[in-house]
């Protein structure tokens, strides 16, 4: 469904999406990195177990929550990629302990 614009000539940054190394344009969001990696769903709902992914991509819907560099409940659409960033699905409710 999503394609990168052909004229995108930005430098690439290497991130890890669910353990897979992916090169994405600098300045992309972590949510965009998940799309580029064709990850599909990016979390499961703690209430229903349903598979979900980013919806608004502008910080409003909170459907894009992921674990980024080990920190849960990050809005992936608002986080800009950095070299070596670890981006993981958030499965169910987060554990505090």
């Amino acid at each position, binding site marked *: 469904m999503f394609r990168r614009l052909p004229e995108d000539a930005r430098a690439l940054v290497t991130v890890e999406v669910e353990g897979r190394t992916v090169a994405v344009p600098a300045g992309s969001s972590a949510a965009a990195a998940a799309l580029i990696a064709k990850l599909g769903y990016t979390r499961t709902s*703690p*209430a229903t177990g349903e598979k979900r992914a980013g919806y608004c991509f502008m910080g409003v819907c*909170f459907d894009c929550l992921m674990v980024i560099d080990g920190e849960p*409940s990050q809005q992936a659409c608002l986080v800009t990629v950095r070299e070596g960033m670890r981006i993981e699905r958030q499965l*169910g*409710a*987060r*554990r*505090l*302990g």
Partner: protein
Amino acid sequence: MRTYDAVVIGGGIVGAAIGYGLAKRRVNVAVLDEGDTALRAARANFGLVWLQSKGDGMPAYGHWTRRSTELWPDFAAELADATGIRTEYEKRGGLVICLGEAELESRRQLALRLHNQAAVYDTEVLDRAALQALVPKMRLGAEVTGASYCPHDGHANPLLLLKALHAALKSHVAAYLPDAPARAIAYRGGSFTVETPAGPIAAARVVLAAGHGSAALAPALGLSAPIRPERGQILITERLDHFLPLPASGLRQTADGTVMIGATHDNPGFDVSTTADASAKLAHRAVRIAPDLARARLVRTWAGLRVLTPDGCPIYMESATCPGAFLAICHSGVTLAAVHAVDLAGAIADGALPARLAPFHPGRFDVSKAA
């Protein structure tokens, strides 16, 4: 003119529970409510079904609350059967978690004092180790000294409770009429006429249970509603893996995993705005109790107005000048929902309040009478 056996004014938790109880007894009842912008404590509360702190100075309130905690399991099951809506009621006991020795000692004193007034609480004071055994997955803050524990306490989802009560009214062919506030009530020849924007409604009985709306309507019916608003603010976290298996006063984890942190007490009048100061206070105490909460994200905060009487205990009365007019006010509408639906509605259906409800008459606030 539409005519009913009884009209309940107010469709919050108190009015809806009484209306449901009347409808179950085949009283032809209508419940009048306002619209979405009304002040509705029923939609802002914490969801505790709570005995352990109730009734200091008024043993009748302790007995009445204990009775409700006994009725709640069947009440919840019955609502689920009638409507398919589960209220998420659980009765695993409840905690008041203490920071420092002084707080624990004052809980111990309160438990003793309450027990001496009414032997209904069965509250135990737990030291830190005993508390930890009840909540093995929760890391306790260094200052936590223990908790009081009452086995009769529990919690429910207050929004689902209200939804279930409204649905149950319909399943008993009672009328729930939103956007139909009572503007005025007249009593003539043994019957009441209630003026609403949807036209007048006649009934042989009127139950005034309109929360803060009761103050304006009470005098014309010979009822007395000396109430004031007290604001309470609550914080809600994101859904977390379950770590709190039983509710604590001020800290409860819902069936969905969100944690509710509450509630403050202040008196800004009819103001339901939230303040950063209150949020900070609530968050600070919660983190002293459970330090891992510092990493949880807050997703919502809200404020509601408690419907408070001068002594904090409920008011129930029947009018002496307009027989058939009843008043019900309380600030524990969730806790008392079961006893309101069963005992109070039963008494109203029978036409008189029983002697054990006499202590709740507002005559107790009349100083000249008490002197």
